[in-house]
């Protein structure tokens, strides 16, 4: 392996030779510079010598013997610790890391391109640097069996980070599990570790020593099109034994259509036998396809429906990849499983979001109400969010979230905010109608605004629905509106004077969003404006526009008809619809004949302000005076008249009664005269 590396890097070798030569020259020239190894060791051979790096106290002892025996034994210290060259002794404690790339430049280039190098460049604390594998002062030649990078040691060196349970394996997106265990039991591992065949493939044989790349990277030694080349480095002419399966010469030429080596010989598990895809699943299903299989601990069913696995998104993922911790050497490989399925081993980024979210925090506090991955995504029958049968398919999301967030359910019960009947309101909203009625999968539903995995309460500054983030959240779909809004006075906190500025949901509500051209919305928006612009809204309702609006009609100008909606500006702003330049045109939207004087109509006039509107004030009070005087005079006149009028009425009644009784007597007499004979 190292042989290959050195032949790959002739440039590095030249420099190394030059450096050796210069080192030797320096040694012959005597102590011209102050940094001969002996000079450094004068201090650094002290076992108790310590220094500080990044605030930590570390030993800076250099074992003279080991250093001398190392491949760098003949070099001066400053060859690597270049920043100390020419410095006064004793030097500062702030020493830069030793530089390997000056000599090993080709290797360094590869390393920078590799997963390890890019992780280091990102500042990933878990990324390995040169000394992580090669050591520091006691670097041994590759051929020395004691070197951590000698073939026999490579699996252990890599295994320091890549064995099960290590932080790298747990927290980074490593798609293989039990790498070292599997390797150890594989034919390669057995050859190397049991039989001592140092030509057997080690980690570096397939992954290269310095340029480890993911298999998705076309330059990777394990990329699908390179796998054959990588394997055939050792397994020359292996195609001859695979004639039944493939036509050998196509193997390298048309790697994309042919099965690659690893399709049958799973990486890290490579054995002599033919490997069926999902063989391990078959092992598991030997027991788990039995419907009566139950847990001995709590009696829950352990039956796994094979057809569910078949249609699942994880169809190509082996059982043991999720149910990690199996030991194939055991009769029941699953008996070594101790941990529940951890989706984070593959879905690391999502898991990180989730852990920060309210849902994740509940689980971290071991709250039984907290939803885990499977609450939403299911278990063996997992579908992608673009598959309509998935519970996370857009049209199914509201129902999914409603399971807990519907009124009376566990999430709604503990919720203390001001939203009510969230699910019902959403379903009635324009978004909900779009989703359920029109079947628009692009309509906003729960996760579009709240995110799928980073759900956080509104108060949290990191929340997608925190007021500061709401415009951006809505803007993911309503981009044009967001752009307008960002320019508006409502988005300019410098003029707010510390007041809370409105964001989308302050006017549109959160869950009961209606169409903006709906009558109900048009009318409520005025009271929404009035929540902050109290005075101006009240006086608006004193004018014709406001009065008609108040009656429940949308035909007259409402706040946004004149001021604009999302592009609202201060009236004095030249961009405002009501600026001197624009106001006449704004009036003309409804009043085609409007002129500049017409625009002088006071749309927020009040007759209660003598300073601001003296004409209105005095007109109002003049008219009121006229009213009061007229009514007082008319009222007094009428009230005084009333007793006399009643008197007259009584007098007339009396007269009429008298007349009636006279007539009655007269008529009865006549009636008697007429009827008398007829009766007889």
């Amino acid at each position: 392996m190292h042989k290959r590396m050195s032949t790959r890097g002739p440039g590095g070798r030249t420099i190394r030779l030059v450096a050796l030569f210069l080192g030797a020259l320096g040694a012959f020239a005597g102590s011209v510079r102050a940094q001969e190894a002996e000079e450094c060791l004068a201090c650094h051979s002290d076992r108790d010598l310590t220094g500080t790096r990044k605030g930590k106290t570390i030993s800076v002892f250099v074992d003279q013997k080991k250093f001398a025996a190392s491949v760098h034994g003949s070099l001066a210290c400053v060859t690597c610790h270049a920043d100390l060259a020419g410095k006064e002794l004793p030097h500062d404690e702030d020493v830069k890391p030793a530089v390997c790339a000056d000599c090993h430049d080709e290797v360094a280039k590869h390393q920078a391109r590799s997963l390890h190098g890019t992780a280091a460049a990102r500042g990933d604390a878990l990324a390995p640097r040169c000394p992580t594998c090669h050591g520091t002062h006691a670097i041994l030649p590759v051929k020395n069996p004691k070197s951590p990078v000698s073939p026999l040691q490579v699996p252990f060196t890599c295994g320091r980070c890549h064995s099960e349970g290590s932080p790298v394996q747990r927290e980074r997106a490593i798609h293989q599990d039990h790498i070292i265990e599997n390797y150890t039991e594989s034919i390669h591992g057995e050859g190397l570790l049991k039989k001592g065949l140092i030509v057997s493939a080690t980690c570096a044989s397939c992954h290269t020593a310095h340029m480890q790349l993911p298999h998705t990277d076309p330059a990777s030694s394990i990329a699908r099109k390179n796998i054959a080349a990588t394997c055939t480095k050792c397994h020359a002419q292996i195609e001859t034994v695979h004639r039944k399966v493939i036509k050998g010469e196509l193997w390298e030429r048309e790697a994309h259509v042919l099965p690659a080596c690893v399709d049958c010989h799973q990486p890290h598990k490579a054995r002599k036998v033919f490997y069926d895809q999902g063989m391990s699943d078959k092992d598991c299903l030997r027991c788990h396809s039995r419907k009566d299989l139950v847990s001995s601990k709590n009696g829950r069913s352990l039956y796994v429906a094979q057809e569910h696995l078949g249609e699942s998104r994880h169809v190509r993922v082996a059982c043991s990849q999720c149910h990690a911790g199996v030991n194939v050497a055991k009769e029941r490989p699953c008996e070594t499983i101790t941990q529940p399925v951890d989706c984070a081993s593959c879905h690391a980024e999502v898991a990180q979001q989730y852990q920060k979210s309210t849902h994740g925090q509940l689980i971290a506090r071991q709250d039984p109400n907290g939803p885990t991955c499977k609450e939403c995504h299911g278990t063996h029958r997992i579908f992608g969010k673009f598959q309509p049968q998935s519970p996370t398919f857009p049209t199914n999301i509201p129902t999914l979230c409603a399971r807990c967030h519907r009124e009376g359910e566990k999430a709604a019960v503990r919720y203390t905010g001001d939203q009510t009947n969230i699910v019902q309101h959403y379903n009635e909203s324009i978004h909900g109608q779009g989703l359920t009625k029109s079947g628009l999968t692009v309509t906003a539903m729960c996760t579009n605004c709240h995110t799928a995995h980073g759900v956080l309460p509104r108060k949290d500054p990191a929340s997608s629905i925190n007021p500061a983030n709401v415009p951006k959240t809505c803007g993911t779909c309503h981009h044009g509106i967001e752009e307008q809004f960002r320019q508006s006075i409502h988005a300019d906190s410098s003029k707010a004077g510390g007041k809370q500025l409105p964001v989308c949901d302050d006017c549109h509500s959160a869950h009961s969003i209606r169409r903006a051209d709906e009558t109900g919305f048009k009318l409520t928006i005025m009271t929404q404006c009035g929540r902050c612009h109290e005075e101006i809204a009240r006086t608006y309702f004193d004018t014709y526009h406001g009065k008609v609006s108040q009656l429940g009609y949308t035909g007259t100008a409402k706040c946004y008809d004149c001021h604009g909606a999302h592009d609202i500006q201060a009236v004095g702003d030249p961009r405002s619809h009501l600026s001197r330049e624009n106001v006449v045109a704004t009036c003309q939207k409804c009043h085609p004949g409007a002129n500049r004087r017409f625009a002088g109509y006071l749309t927020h006039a009040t007759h209660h302000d003598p300073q601001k509107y003296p004409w209105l004030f005095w007109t109002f009070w003049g008219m009121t005076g006229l009213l009061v005087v007229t009514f007082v005079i008319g009222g007094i006149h009428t009230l005084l008249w009333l007793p006399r009028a009643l008197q007259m009425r009584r007098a007339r009644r009396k007269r009429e009664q008298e007349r009636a009784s006279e007539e009655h007597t007269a008529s009865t007499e006549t009636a008697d005269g007429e009827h008398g004979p007829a009766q007889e």
Partner: protein
Amino acid sequence: MVSMDPHKNSTDERQYVRFSRLNRLLHAGMIVSFISLALTGMTLKFSYTGWAAFLSRLFGGYQSAGFIHRLAAVVMVAVFITHVVDLFRRKKREYGSWKALLFGPDTMLMNKKDLHDVRDSFKWFLGMGPRPQYGRWTYWEKFDYFAVFWGMVVIGSTGLTLWFPEFFTLVFPGWALNVATIIHSDEALLATGFIFTVHFFNTHLRPEKFPMDMVIFTGRMDVEELKEDKPEEYEKEVAAGTLESRLAEPYPAIVIRAIRVFAWIALGIGFSIVVWIIYAMVFAYR
């Protein structure tokens, strides 16, 4: 119904004709247009009450209510113009000169007698004198009559401004529309308030006329009633010997009944508006 009224059973059933057919028609036109204007206008003035919203719906929305308001305004102006034209006609036919019309005994203008009547009326109210000998037109009738002139000018002109704001702002500043709104609406409040309370009492609901004085609709009143109510007019007619020529047969019962229904509806609406105004201004004012 009429015959059941004992007082109609007098020997001579003919009645004194006080109002011409045209005047009665004009008054009816006035009632219809005035009530329409009041109802549709008040929906805006008191738009903050539930009643306003209900009425506005009843009129078919603010646009339709606005149309009715303007239509009624046109009718009222037409009534007004017809009356003025009639005045010109009557000046020519009955009086011969403006002087005779304006300063004769039947004038609608306030004169010395009216001032005396006002004084004597208050004396009578306070029990300090007899009931004045009211003539053909009493001072309160004259007041109501000229209130229409005043209202026509004030409400009509401001109403026109609000009807054609784009035209009027070619001359007047924009805030004049706000002023016009206040004048229009408060003057209308005065008119409706006054008509539906004081006018209703004075000419329809006075206890001695209660529940309804039909004279403005039928044009006719009993001679007996004339003698009591307008003694001066009665005596003048008797003295001139023209009383007989002014008598006419009463309308058939069915006509009277129809008129009563109409009048009661108008009266009912009027009172409802008063109640509504009081409610809106006292209990729901904002």
